[in-house]
């Protein structure tokens, strides 16, 4: 007993002698260690006393091996281009460099040859959302718009003054814009052009890849070294046959020494392996490709709406960087807008996206304008001056033409449905009635809906 009282008195004295803090600061009290509770001094409960024991329930824990780093993403992004269960389609022609516009392939489903498939895979032209995994081997329908692109390819090669064709591919959701882009790339590969493809514009602007200011640029531009080196490796892998035919001709003043017999493929590989030099090497490669007597170039981008606005990157004074200030994007936009032409000719294709398109009033208005211009160059719509618009994007898209993708015709729908049936994926008799019914239900022949309606769920 006496000890307790002594203790209590001590406690009270301690309380009085508690550190007196200045009235204007509470930090000492706040950062002080929490006072020790009495329970810690009490010791274990006496014998016979009941105490509350709360058992931690042992939740069943998944003890299996976790997937390795990146394995989940790899599964999600995996591109499957073959289904061994599907039947081989007999009598299907292959696309080659000579029959791009032949009568035999007009409105028919044609197979893509093996090397082209490898190249397309290297430039990531195939998407996971497309139905390549259902059929024996990749094959596409040569629709009206595909033949237009084939005509552009022929025009570019036939033109004396080395023509540059610039187009924005627009159309409804699931109308085949990305597939049309893929067909364009395939045709370029077949004609031994140099193909540079940005598979998803979104990756460039959402701030997921590192960036750095480009020294000596005014206004400041930004390079994306990791992305550029990856792009160079794609270029090297997909165009190796063409690029290894040409050697460098000029001194590019790179910080590494290049032997004079370096092929362009080697140069691209070098850029792929040294990310810190990737942008200078990319410009060097571009300079080489634009020398006389070099092949035409196919430049393509998917999801162009993403680069028609501010990017997610910040400048040194914490302002949003415009997408056109990113060096790679500016390089592409300069060619799309026609500010720079391709001296050896070529095609610049940009596809919009129906499912992943950010609001870009400038792009929307430019598309409207281009469509109106194609109809009647006198009567053009005016921009609503009370709406804000990204002037740089509007300027860059001033005179770009659009390639509008409509639905398939009934003959094209029949061709692709016969291909589905011959592959064993559509278990119906393809007759006039079925084609007409499916075509109508697919929103007047929207090819994505047509596939969904005939192959995906209804069998």
């Amino acid at each position: 007993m006496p000890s307790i009282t002594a203790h209590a008195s001590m406690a009270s004295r301690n309380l009085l002698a508690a550190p007196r803090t200045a009235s204007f600061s509470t930090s000492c009290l706040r950062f002080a260690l929490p006072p020790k509770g009495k329970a810690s001094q009490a010791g274990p409960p006496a014998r016979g006393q009941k105490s509350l024991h709360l058992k931690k329930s042992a939740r069943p824990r998944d003890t299996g091996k976790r997937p390795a780093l990146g394995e989940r993403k790899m599964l999600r992004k995996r591109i499957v281009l073959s289904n061994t269960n599907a039947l081989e389609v007999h009598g299907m022609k292959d696309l080659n460099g000579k029959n791009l516009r032949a009568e035999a392939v007009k409105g028919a489903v044609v197979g893509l040859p093996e090397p082209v498939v490898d190249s397309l895979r290297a430039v990531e032209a195939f998407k996971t959302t497309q139905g390549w995994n259902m059929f024996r081997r990749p094959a596409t329908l040569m629709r009206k718009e595909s033949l237009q692109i084939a005509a552009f390819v022929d025009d570019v090669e036939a033109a004396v003054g080395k023509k540059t064709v610039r187009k924005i591919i627009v159309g409804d959701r699931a109308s085949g814009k990305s597939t049309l882009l893929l067909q364009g790339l395939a045709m370029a590969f077949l004609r031994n052009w140099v193909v540079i493809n940005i598979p998803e514009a979104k990756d460039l602007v959402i701030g997921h890849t590192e960036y750095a200011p480009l020294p000596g640029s005014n206004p400041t531009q930004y390079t994306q070294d990791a992305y550029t080196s990856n792009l160079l490796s794609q270029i090297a892998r997909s165009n190796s046959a063409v690029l290894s035919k040409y050697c460098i001709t000029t001194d590019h003043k790179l910080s590494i020494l290049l032997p004079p017999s370096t092929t362009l493929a080697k140069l691209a590989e070098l850029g792929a392996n040294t990310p810190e030099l990737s942008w200078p090497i990319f410009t060097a490669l571009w300079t080489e490709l634009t020398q006389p007597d070099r092949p035409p170039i196919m430049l393509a981008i998917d999801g162009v709406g993403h680069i028609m606005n501010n990017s997610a990157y910040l400048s040194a004074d914490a302002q949003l960087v415009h997408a056109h200030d990113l060096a790679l994007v500016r390089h592409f936009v300069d060619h799309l807008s026609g500010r720079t032409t391709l001296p050896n000719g070529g095609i610049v294709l940009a596809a919009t996206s129906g499912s992943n398109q950010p609001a870009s009033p400038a792009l929307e208005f430019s598309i409207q304008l281009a469509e109106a211009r194609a109809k009647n160059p006198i009567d053009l719509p005016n921009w609503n001056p009370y709406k804000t618009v990204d002037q740089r994007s509007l300027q860059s898209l001033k005179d770009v033409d659009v390639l509008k993708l409509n639905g398939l015709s009934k003959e094209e729908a029949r061709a692709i449905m016969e291909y589905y049936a011959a592959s064993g994926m559509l278990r119906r008799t393809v007759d006039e009635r079925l084609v007409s019914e499916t075509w109508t239900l697919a929103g007047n022949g929207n090819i994505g809906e047509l596939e969904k309606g005939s192959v995906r769920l209804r069998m």
Partner: protein
Amino acid sequence: MPPRLNLLSVPRTIAYRPKTDALAWQANCIAQPSLTLRRNFAESKEPPAADKSKNPDTQPLGGVTEEAAKTSDIIGTEGPDIEQGTSVEEVVKRDKEAQKMLPKVMQDSLKSTPKGFRSFSTTASRSQGMGLEESGPPPPPPIMPGIKFSLPTLPIPSDAHLKYRYDPVVKQVTNLLMRHGKLSVAQRNMSLILTHLRTSPPPSINPSRPLLPGAPPPSHLPLNPILYLSLAIDSVAPLLRLRSQKGAAGGGVALQIPVPLGLRQRRRTAVEWILAAATKRRNRGSGKGGFAQRVAEELISVVEGKSSVWERRNAIHKLGVAARANLILKR
């Protein structure tokens, strides 16, 4: 002609032993001295207890001919013609005691060797028809003026209705896949499941886990994913469930009573088992299609006989057989 009585096969497919009280059982024993005589022969128009219950399992068995016909139907041989009656000689051929009760003439004819036999039947068959059936396809519908497209051919197929456009199995599985009323998500998952089934290699069948009889060879399955799905579900679907009935045994003890399930109920049970097994599987990838992929993998493992769902089915059937003794059928 195959023998009418198939002695090698099990005489009854499902033998329910009705539990009756002792007195009635004794009375039955006295009234019906032998099993052979208790059977109903083909001549009797209707089995005596046919009107007692509507449950097919409680119906008394048919005569020997019907039974032989059913057995041969199951094992796939040609059975006796049910239209014909069973001759008494054949019925009593192996029953020595019944032979003693036969009239004198028939006993004599049994002892004497037959002089000859007909290989054809002399009884008239009702299935021959009276010449009233029409033959040939129905006449084409008359061309009616003012109709843009031709009239639909009748009968209209069952999936032509907007609300019944999908296969019944697909529809049922889609509805069972649905969570929080999100039908379109369930439909997307169903589509992914069918795509997985048609892109995965053909299953290897385990002979100890037989699928439904008449199943197509495994190489045909991936190209017909709906059949694949139906086959997996119908093969593991249990035939019955166990209902525990309180107080049936007296003293407040619950009795397990086997109850046969209907087609949709059987499928529902099987799908729920499969979904439960798929939920326990590990998700290997990431993103939206993970569950659909696991369900599809589970379906494939069901067809290959690897799935744990088979154990559940066998356990239920085993319990059902044991609980058969608890059934009380009113006579």
